[in-house]
């Protein structure tokens, strides 16, 4: 085993997973709510298809599209270079973009399912009691969908932490910059350093397990409190 193990994949992965779950969580909630409110079924199904696509497609295909959009010649990539002199592709933000896009469908679908489970009479009751739509969203819809939203968050976080294919396409595998834990596992195995790979694997298993344990614990306690 290499005595000087590189710890940077751990900190990069933690930063990427944390920022991406933050973005995915709120984006997923907002989009889920917007979709739930759409009355036209055709539009609803079409949009749902688009938002779900990233989990159905092979990650490299999603990465291909992302590269097309955020690459130096892509519409958004070029814009950022021209106006902010910032290169997105093959830089750390690219790992966040890849993780957000790949984990978004899980958050969106879980949140949507959780919202649809909430009795619509509750929302109407809120309206007839004079609550603002904003208050109804947070205090009734969000609060009652919370257990489902939390489990969506767990899945999305785990998906973001484990993101490989799209990240490889858009962010590459640059040590100290875009080499996340899954990338590092791959790189070490490719280089024949099974010992280092094993260490990274242990770290990723521990982080994933702790995250799931904490969030599950919170959601189960909440549900128990409301019942008996």
């Amino acid at each position, binding site marked *: 085993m290499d005595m000087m193990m590189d710890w940077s994949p751990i900190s990069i992965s933690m930063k990427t997973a944390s920022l991406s779950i933050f973005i995915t969580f709120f984006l997923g909630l907002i989009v889920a709510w917007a979709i739930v409110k759409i009355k036209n079924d055709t539009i609803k199904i079409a949009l749902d298809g688009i938002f779900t696509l990233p989990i159905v497609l092979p990650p490299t295909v999603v990465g291909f599209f992302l590269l097309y959009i955020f690459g130096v010649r892509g519409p958004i990539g070029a814009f950022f270079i021209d106006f902010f002199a910032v290169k997105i592709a093959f830089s750390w933000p690219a790992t966040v973009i890849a993780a957000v896009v790949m984990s978004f469908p899980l958050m969106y679908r879980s949140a949507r399912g959780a919202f649809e489970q909430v009795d619509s*009479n509750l929302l*109407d*009751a809120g309206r*007839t*009691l004079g609550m603002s739509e904003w208050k109804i969203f947070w205090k009734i819809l969000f*609060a009652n969908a919370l257990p489902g939203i939390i489990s969506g968050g767990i899945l999305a976080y785990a998906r973001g932490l484990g993101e490989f294919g799209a990240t490889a396409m858009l962010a590459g595998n640059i040590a100290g910059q875009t080499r996340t834990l899954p990338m590092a596992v791959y790189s070490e195995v490719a280089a024949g350093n099974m010992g280092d790979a094993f260490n990274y694997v242990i770290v990723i298993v521990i982080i994933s397990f702790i995250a799931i344990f904490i969030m599950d614990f919170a959601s189960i306690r909440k549900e128990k409190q409301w019942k*008996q």
Partner: protein
Amino acid sequence: MINKSLKVNIQKELKEFDLEVDFELKKPCLGILGPSGCGKSMTLKSIAGIVNPDNGVIILMDDNETTYFDSNKKINLKPQKRNVGYLFQNYALFPNMTVEENVAIGISKNDGDKTVSDMIKRFHLEGLEKRYPGQLSGGQQQRVALARIMAYSPDVILLDEPFSAMDTFLKEQLRIELVNSLKDFNGFSILVTHDRDEAFQFCDELIILDEGKVIARGDTHEVFENPGKVQVARLTGCKNISKIEIIDDYHLKSIDWGITLEVSEKITPNITHIGIRAHDFYPADKNDVNVIDTINSVKLEMPFEWEITLANGLWWKRDKEIHDHEFEIPEFVKVDPKNIILLEE
């Protein structure tokens, strides 16, 4: 209640039929009776502003005039602004909030705490303040829902089949509680139900709705006594209804029961059916008016009634005491001509 009124005149296209409801409420309580899917809940939801009618007006007149909805003037007040309390069938208590929080949710900040504790007392919820709705019995849930509505001090209370999902015992107990809590309320209340007993118990006035149309309206007792239409008779619980052939002004032949009957009211050409309530048969002599042979009848014992089905399909209900178990069906029964209800299709 001088000059107070609630005027509702709305149309809405629905999948199965068009909803066309109009009424003007002046007495405190109106009942809307109809079979399930007749548009009664839709009417309530329109008044609350939860659904929007296609056309029409909804105007509340009390100290001043409030237009909830007016399609011509393009007025459509949000449910938040209508000051209407809605009692949902499942009560729609917020499962994530305690009893206290549920009651407090509709109150503006200034007088919050006082109103909440008043309501908790008034609806006998002391000791349950910190409980969640999932931990309460059905009766307690209904009281919390009513406390929440009353704390909001609405102008109109809408009751959407509040007892339909309950067992008989709880139902009867809660009806009494609801009657009592509505007594102190000096706005309008509208009860929607498919249960004739509920409608009869609660309401001064009644509207009968079928496939989105008002088919009868008036004073509750009046509607029950003179239903006028076949559908209304059926909804107000008339068990025996038959198609008829008119013989002369006061005589007719029942097609379904194969008997000739005399009535006290003149039969006009628009009369197509008659109704006889199951309680309106009495033992008789062979020579009485409107006598029916009881040969081959079947009797069924209920705790407080005998249910007798005559050979021609007529239902007869006769009250009894709980410890009476013997009943000899008389050879003949009769119907008083004035108890035969003339009906239009």
